[in-house]
């Protein structure tokens, strides 16, 4: 077990079929897909923090939802502690051949999920959502919210034990003393406190993996710092691995170990944060880094502002998917998709210029 990475994702695909009109069906038009995640592979070691960065619509949230089991992947493997969870495993168990060509990707499959494997994954992997105002049930008390994972998984059945675990989780999340909070409702707390409750609810099961989907983007600057510090502390204390999803490169440098930059459903560059920040290889990463606001007017610099917006994921350009917006585009880019090339130690990028 130990030689495995905690999480390994191989060739993950998630296509959402686009609703067809009856006319289209009659014309036998081939179904169209939104290719939210289009072949993504990465791995996460124990205790590591991986940041997935990209603009909205690049598929980063879909990855999070797929990892946690809120969506089923169209194809690809998710290995948690060396064991498969998800569609591929189900296909194998059902005696079906693995999906290969993109043509078959997206066929509807609703084979019964191996509930136990998924439930175990959910116990060991927890998610923190973006909006602390939305992710708490307004009619539950803080105690009920934090205790919910224990109830769902039938853990700590005795009242005293459950109360103790909730208290510890709340206090670890910086809500001290826990008694002051447990009988309150979410609307009585501030945004920062709500996000702490979300974190307490995620940590109460002592998971190995935490998936944080933009955990601070809805918060005020001063509170943002508190929550980032809290996540950093939790990670040091409990050794939890974190997949940190954000559009804000600024927060990434703060505590991620590795960085994966996504564009239109695919990772275009990945590597250790320091390495990628100091030595970005992909033109998209360069542009993203250049527009991160720096809180000092003396450090205003030349910015690479990409024109236009991320294309629709239903209509991915041919060749390198970044070429229509790339400032250094070549003829070759329009025809063939570049492969990953190693730039440095653990640092990879997919661009013809490397």
């Amino acid at each position: 077990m130990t030689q495995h990475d905690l999480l390994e994702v191989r060739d993950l695909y998630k296509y959402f079929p686009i609703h067809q009109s009856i006319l289209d069906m009659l014309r036998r038009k081939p179904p169209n897909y939104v290719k939210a995640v289009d072949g993504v592979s990465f791995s996460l070691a124990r205790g590591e923090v991986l940041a997935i960065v990209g603009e909205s619509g690049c598929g980063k949230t879909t990855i999070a939802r797929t990892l946690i089991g809120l969506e089923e992947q169209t194809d690809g493997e998710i290995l948690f502690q060396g064991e498969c969870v998800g569609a591929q495993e189900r296909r194998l168990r059902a005696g079906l051949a693995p999906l290969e060509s993109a043509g078959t990707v997206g066929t509807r499959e609703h084979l019964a999920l191996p509930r136990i494997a998924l439930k175990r994954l959910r116990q060991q992997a927890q998610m923190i959502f973006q909006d602390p105002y939305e992710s708490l049930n307004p009619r539950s008390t803080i105690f009920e919210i934090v205790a919910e994972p224990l109830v769902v998984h039938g853990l700590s059945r005795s009242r005293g034990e459950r109360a103790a675990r909730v208290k510890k989780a709340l206090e670890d999340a910086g809500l001290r003393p826990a008694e002051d909070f447990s009988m309150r409702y979410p609307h009585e707390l501030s945004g920062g406190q709500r996000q702490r409750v979300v974190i307490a609810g995620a940590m109460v099961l002592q998971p190995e993996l935490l998936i944080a989907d933009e955990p601070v983007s809805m918060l005020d600057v001063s509170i943002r710092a508190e929550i980032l510090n809290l996540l950093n502390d939790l990670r040091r204390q409990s050794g939890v691995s974190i997949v940190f999803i954000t559009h804000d490169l600024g927060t990434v440098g703060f505590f991620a170990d590795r960085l994966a930059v996504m564009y239109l459903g695919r990772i275009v560059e990945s590597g250790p944060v320091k390495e990628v920040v100091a030595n970005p290889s992909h033109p998209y990463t360069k542009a993203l880094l250049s527009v991160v606001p720096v809180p000092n007017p003396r450090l205003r610099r030349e910015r690479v502002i990409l024109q236009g917006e991320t294309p629709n994921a239903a209509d991915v350009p041919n060749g390198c998917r970044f070429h229509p917006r790339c400032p250094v585009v070549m003829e070759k880019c329009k025809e063939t998709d570049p492969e990953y090339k190693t730039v440095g130690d653990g640092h990879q990028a997919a661009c013809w210029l490397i």
Partner: protein
Amino acid sequence: MNERWILFKRNVTDFWRTFRRNKLGLIGAVLVLSAVLVAVFAPAFSPYKPTDVIRDENGRGLTFAPPSVHGPLGTDDAGRDVWTQLVYGARISIMVGFLAGFIAMFIGSLFGITAGYYGGSVDTLLMRITDILLVIPDLPLMLVLVATMRQMDLHISPLIVLVIVIGLLYWTSTARLIRSQVLTIKERQFVARARAIGAGHAHIIRKHILPQIMPLIVANTVLILSTAILVESGLAFLGLGDPTQPSWGTMLNFAFDRSAITNGAWWFYLPPGFAIVWVTLGCVLLGNVLEEMLNPRLTEHHLEGEQHMVSLPDAQSLSGSGSEAVS
């Protein structure tokens, strides 16, 4: 247990505090409660039985006696006391209305939640059934149903027949309303969070969906009650009530049949009419106010916080819990 009790008490006091401020709601509650009290303690409000015939000193039945002769509301064509009939009729009207209303609410909630939560083909199927029921004209359908059920010789009281028919036909609007609410709640993040935790459907419906729509169900039940009472009165007026247990509708039916109107016996037909208006108006007022109050509160957003501060000074957000945790 103790903490739960405190929490419950706090919720109730909070509710009462907001409710108290609303004049219309209070009026509605008084109207409905007074009618229910009269129905429950009917014998205390009248010395007679509804079947008792009032006789004058000669032993002859007092027919169509105006209120000035026999108080407070005179007598009907058979010399029975109208006030007594009205008081006992409240029992029947309110009971039929409430039972039918609750049945409708139950079916409506069940359909609404199931359709909204599971979606897909379940949703389509349930909603098509709802649509079909919605487009068939109610009154003829009910007449046919009541008549058929009576014909079938089921040996059930005509009142129960009324309850079943009204209950089975008036859930459609509720189902649609609740379905649309569930559809929005289902997409909210705390439901996604519950799913991410690993919660099953039953848990999510019980812990996350139901508490959110409960207020809506409560408010809607009160509104449905008024409809049920009205419909019951209508059917009873058409002669489909139980003549041995007269409701307000049946009273109207009698009044109409026995030419109370041509006789100018206004004390016979006006009181039941007023009684029906009394209860339905109460239900509507109360229901509207409850709906307004209990509607899922708009969640405030951090970037809107300021505007909230400006435009809707909410007592809770401004002066509520002051103590802040310092990390």
